[in-house]
């Protein structure tokens, strides 16, 4: 099972989260951007001599949506953490917009938004104070306006002045999304972001992702739900033992095929 290279998606298979941007062919993206937004070559990572990623090679064009699937410990989160400049690779290279995730980490951080397992928020501060703090960290112009509009967008305008510690799991996840989108990142990284969201929350997530893509964004998400991956991504990549074992465009794939492949990989 290898990636076919055909990224063209029909409107029928793109689902609600699709956008004009995601309908671009890989060739069109190449012509527009010149080089992939994300380039990963020979990327390896070990923790205390235990390899977590082994020679990952991957590239992603601006406007593409990639879903990473795999069992727990397959290396999905580590890959996202390297792209977010939170972890240094043991070997190999990861570039975002031509910038090295180790050498040019500060510049890369400006381009990347991450929603991780933890919400990365301060519990003693209110929802608004959290967003205002991160707006200043990212140097967001008109930070207050942006924070308030995002709170409205994620349905937390009424809880703006409540401490984050008092929010539910789903509300925390929504606020974490707002935090990640605050600086309008070019590359959005979602690490099982749909976890903890109810139906309305998942619909909101899909809508926010569609807006991000419509704004010219690029997406890498990890999930354990094949249906979510099929709905939100143009390409599926499955990891096993730190290696890419499956790569396929979602165009033309149906859910049963993805589930079968996922079961084969996860075991």
């Amino acid at each position, binding site marked *: 099972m290898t990636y076919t290279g055909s990224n063209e998606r029909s409107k029928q298979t793109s689902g609600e989260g699709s956008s004009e941007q995601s309908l671009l062919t890989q060739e069109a993206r190449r012509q527009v951007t010149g080089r992939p937004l994300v380039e990963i070559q020979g990327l390896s990572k070990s923790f205390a001599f235990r390899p977590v990623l082994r020679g990952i090679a991957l590239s992603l064009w601006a406007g593409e949506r990639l879903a990473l699937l795999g069992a727990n410990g397959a290396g999905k989160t580590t890959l996202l953490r390297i792209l977010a400049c*939170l972890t240094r690779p043991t070997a190999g290279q990861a570039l975002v917009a031509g910038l090295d995730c180790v050498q040019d980490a500060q510049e890369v951080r400006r381009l990347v938004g991450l929603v991780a397992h*933890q919400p990365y928020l301060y519990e003693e501060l209110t929802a608004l104070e959290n967003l205002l703090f991160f707006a200043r960290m990212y140097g967001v112009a008109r930070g207050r306006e942006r924070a308030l509009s995002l709170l409205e967008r994620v349905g937390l305008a009424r809880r703006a002045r409540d401490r984050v510690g008092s929010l539910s799991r789903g509300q925390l996840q929504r606020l974490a999304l707002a935090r990640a989108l605050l600086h309008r990142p070019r590359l959005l990284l979602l690490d099982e972001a749909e976890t903890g969201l109810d139906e309305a929350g998942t619909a909101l997530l899909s809508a926010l992702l569609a807006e991000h893509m419509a704004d010219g964004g690029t997406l890498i998400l990890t999930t354990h739900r094949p249906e979510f991956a099929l709905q939100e991504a143009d390409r599926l990549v499955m990891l096993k033992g730190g290696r890419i074992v499956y790569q396929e465009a979602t165009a033309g794939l149906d859910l049963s095929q993805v589930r079968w492949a996922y079961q084969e990989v996860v075991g």
Partner: protein
Amino acid sequence: MNRLSALRLFCSQVLAILGKDIRYELRSKQTWLGMGLFALLVFVIFNFAFDLRVENRAAVAPGALWVAFVFASLLGLGRTIAAEREGGSLDRLLLCPVDRRAIYLAKLLGNLLFIGIVELVALPIFAALFAVPLFSGELLPIVLLGTLGVATIGTLFSAMTAATRARELLLPLLVFPLIVPVVIAAVRATGALMIAAPNEPPWLGLLAAFDVIFLSLAFLTFSYVIEE
């Protein structure tokens, strides 16, 4: 980004982290209360333990004062980065495109502020308990420079030990040996205010020199300490 806007962003980030820490501390009240109560307890215990007479007060008071300040400071310093790791992790700060020196500077300023307030409250109580004439214009630079020395090293090592399970044990073990020169200089300089001693080295100058060295080292090494 030109230098001016980079500097502006740096200052804005320092103030944002500092403001966040102050707001956080005002709400949780964990650090200030603990440090303040600890300093007061040390003063009271020393006061009774030494059974001070008029002639030996001046000899004991500077040591007691700085022991209280140093131990109380360590209580607060341990919280500096540990609070960042609680309820999440340091990643939320490291994820941002913020110069690691800005994080250090903000944490250092926060520590100086927290320790400074505790000292401000503790000094009059100390003067009353020990009946020593501590309030002179020269005490201020000694306290400032001594506190800066302790906070500079303490902030760096609190970042180093925050990820460890035994940080409460490790922090004093690492910090105390390094701040010995600062404590000696601060105690001797404070003592010299009470009993004029001939041929004393320029303790204040030494304190300033230690601070400059520690501050430079901390600025150079902090990003390596805090990152993976």
